[in-house]
């Protein structure tokens, strides 16, 4: 089994707000991230797939195809967007880095045909990242 990681970057804005909570509770829980006008990050995404090396091509996965899937499913939808307002997953879920990793995993899972998705890692800043392995 060989593991392959592809990296991509995107920039997006978001804010944290739970409509079931009062404005006070939201401010206490989310602090500055609760500002409804949003704020932004340069996200770095690392997608790791795994598989056996194809003896004919020497590839675990065709990188070009992986890049196309990443571009179509993730970057086109999220790069230079306001996540809360423009990405459907976040009309009901808070766009934390945790939920972003889960949403990206769910977007990619059915679209990768040969390689098996192993890990989605999302860096919100160089000092904070979340790993999601598809665990329930």
């Amino acid at each position, binding site marked *: 089994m060989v593991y392959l990681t592809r990296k991509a970057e995107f920039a997006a804005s978001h804010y944290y707000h739970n409509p079931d909570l009062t404005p006070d509770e939201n401010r206490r829980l*989310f602090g500055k991230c609760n500002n409804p006008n949003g704020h932004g990050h340069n996200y770095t995404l690392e997608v790791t797939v795994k598989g056996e090396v194809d003896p004919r091509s020497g590839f675990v996965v065709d990188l070009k195809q992986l890049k196309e899937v990443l571009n179509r499913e993730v970057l086109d939808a999220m790069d230079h967007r306001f996540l809360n307002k423009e990405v459907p997953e976040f009309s009901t879920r808070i*766009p934390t880095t*945790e939920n972003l*990793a*889960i949403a990206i995993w769910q977007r990619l899972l059915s679209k990768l045909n040969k390689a098996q998705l192993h890990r989605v890692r999302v860096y919100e800043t160089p000092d*904070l*990242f979340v790993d999601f392995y598809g665990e*329930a």
Partner: protein
Amino acid sequence: MKAHLTRRYMFSASHRLHSAAMSEAENAATYGKCNNPYGHGHNYSLEITVSGLVDESTGMVCNLVDLDGFVQREILQRFDLENLNTRAEFLQTVPTTENLCTAIYDILQRGFTHAHLDKVRIEETMMNSFEYAGAGEIGR
């Protein structure tokens, strides 16, 4: 769903690698330049990984305010801009980065209750790093 969150903190400290159980010659042979009696320092990069189910109402594994507060109070205040050899954790053990990893892991394991502790990773320099996961596995 379960996610793993990693937060990085920086701190600077000095240390001297010297074991009371060894002779001067053994210490010099084992630790080389790190045995210099005056000590030397590093900028440490500390990565703490915690995991748990993502809370549906907050979207979080744990609130970063809680993790940052704990690390500031219990770890950075103890080690940042200090001589590690003078700290309680290293009165009996040599302040190698291996032992620093396990000491920090133990502090978190004992006191941080907001999420499950996966592992502690420390870079002593850009060229070396150490990881400790207690009884858990480093694995992925």
